[in-house]
């Protein structure tokens, strides 16, 4: 089912939780709402669920305006971070609860419950109570309960946050596969960008109740439209350097404290045509910097953080700015050593320090 949010807003007293949010979600699409805590993503989800009534704007499920439709009449399935299972019911009763309310005949109910439970690999746990299950199993029951009524839309509220790291990885894959197979429009709230990047078809990045970007993971990563998105997406985060952008001999030169680079031609042209002032913020991701004796930037190794396959080097520029650099381990450098860094210039990002908008991708 196609879902459209049109200029949606939600106020709690004087607090604006969601502000003028417009999102068009295609049928069968997996969309992640991503943002730091308090950005309004859960509020948005609860408006979709019908728990909160929007202060303004419209929510459309297909061609049905659902602003005033009760949660029970929206045919949605929802999975909560806390699982929200009913502790006084068995797994079977939990899963069949939505069907019981729909007055589905007993045999049909049993059959459907068994099918969805088998799909979630909890078919053998039907007689247990939630308290007797592990966190992962509880989350599977919660998923089964959301799926059993064959919802038009699936809502997820940070469903994996309470699981341990390994289980989280497994479930991440399973939910993605499940969503792909069942082709149910899904909206997934998370503050974990890795989760959003790996699972979603498109990601809506929210900050302070406002939409920052709504794009594919690839676009968010490679062509961030503003400073917030650039800094929020990617781990370790993108490096930002204050710099000046000037045109010299038809080339775009970015110059900062202790470094001077020439932008590739196409990027340079775009930047120069967009820039309204000389000051810019230059952004480059840690994975796009190399150690190279011919590098254009001189720095000193400040801290080395081994991550296993790679090491994250915190390099200090002459003016004291720290620059994260991700290099394969086995580089041999030590703390305090002077190194030269080479930027992969075609991955450069440029932002206007005042509007915080990208000079390359708008």
């Amino acid at each position: 089912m196609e879902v459209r949010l049109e200029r949606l807003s939600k106020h709690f007293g004087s607090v604006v939780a969601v502000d003028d949010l417009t999102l068009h979600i295609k049928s069968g699409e997996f969309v992640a709402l991503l943002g730091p805590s308090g950005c309004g993503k859960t509020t948005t989800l609860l408006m979709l669920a019908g728990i909160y009534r929007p202060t303004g704007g419209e929510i459309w499920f297909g061609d049905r305006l659902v602003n005033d439709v009760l949660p029970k009449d929206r045919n949605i399935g929802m999975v909560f971070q806390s699982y929200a299972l009913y502790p006084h019911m068995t797994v079977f009763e939990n899963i069949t609860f939505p069907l019981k309310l729909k007055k589905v005949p007993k045999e049909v109910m049993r059959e459907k419950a068994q099918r969805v439970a088998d799909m979630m690999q909890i078919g053998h746990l039907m007689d247990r109570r939630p308290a007797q299950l592990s966190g992962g199993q509880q989350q599977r029951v919660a998923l089964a309960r959301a799926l059993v009524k064959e919802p038009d839309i699936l809502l997820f509220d940070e469903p994996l946050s309470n699981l341990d790291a390994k289980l989280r990885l497994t479930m991440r894959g399973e939910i993605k596969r499940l969503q792909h197979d069942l082709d149910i429009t899904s909206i997934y709230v998370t503050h974990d960008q890795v989760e959003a990047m790996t699972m979603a078809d498109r990601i809506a990045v929210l900050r302070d109740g406002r939409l920052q970007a709504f794009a594919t993971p690839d676009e968010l990563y490679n062509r961030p439209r503003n400073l917030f998105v650039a800094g929020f997406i990617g781990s370790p985060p993108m490096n930002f350097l204050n710099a000046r952008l000037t045109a010299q001999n038809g080339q775009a030169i970015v110059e900062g404290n202790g470094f001077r680079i020439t932008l590739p031609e196409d990027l340079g042209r775009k930047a120069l045509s967009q820039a309204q002032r000389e000051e810019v913020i230059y952004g480059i991701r840690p994975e796009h910097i190399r150690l190279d004796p011919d590098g254009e930037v001189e720095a000193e190794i400040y801290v080395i953080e081994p991550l296993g396959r790679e090491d994250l080097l915190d390099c200090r520029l002459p003016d004291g700015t720290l620059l994260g650099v991700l290099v394969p381990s086995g580089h041999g450098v030590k703390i305090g050593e002077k190194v030269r860094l080479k930027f992969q210039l075609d991955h450069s990002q440029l932002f206007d320090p005042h509007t915080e908008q990208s000079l390359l991708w708008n």
Partner: protein
Amino acid sequence: MAEHAGSRIGQIILGIIVLLLSMPLLVMYIWLVESAFSQITYGIIPQGFTLSNWRFLWEGFTNMPSIWRITWNTLVFAVVVATIEVFIASLTGYALSRMKFPGRRMFLSLTLVLHAFPAVTLLIAIFYVLLVLGLYDTLVGVIMVKAALELPLGVWIMKGFFDNISWDMEMSALIDGCSRLRTWWEILLPNIRPGIAALSIFAFLSGWSEFLLPYIYTSSFENFTLSVLLRRLVGDFRFVDYGLLTATGLYYMMPVLLFFIFTQEYLLNIYAGGTKGTTV
């Protein structure tokens, strides 16, 4: 080793102190039981075992309804008060815990004030109300008054229990297809069963031991409760038969005692965990 011995001596001393402190209470109860089964007592020394103090069970009292009728009244009083209180408090507690409505804070504060309000000061006003409603000297009237006076505490306790249930579970039920009322009934109530049990017991015990209200708002024999009966036995113009009085007292106490033994675990909920996390 020495330390161990020291702590044991300390414990013994502590035990003695506790025993001494509770002595007055113990002596009273010992006397109550003794006296109920003896012809006469000198201090706490009983003399002559007898069951004749218990003859009211089969012979009844002079000029009063049978003990069974009175017991029935007391039971009805306590059970109905408890039922009304639990029913209203669990609905009100839910509303106060879960819904936003104008005057909610005010309502909560007022409830607390009402709870702190000495009921005695209301006696005359309530008397008039009952009189006007035609409920004076009826059990129904007294039950309503008692339930009303107990409700503030009950509402607060139930609100506390509801506060402890996660919103997620309730939202989940709404999304699964429940109405709010059904969520309350099928999802929330089963999960605050300990709270309901505790409040029921609490309300029942309070109803069972209530004296003032039935004493003041009923006058006919057929509306007597056990506490009023006890009061009658030490009436102003009678020779007090202590044997009979203590036997009746023991009879009055027995169900509560048994009840308490079996339910104290639930009762502790109210004091220990029940109102934890309560917020206005």
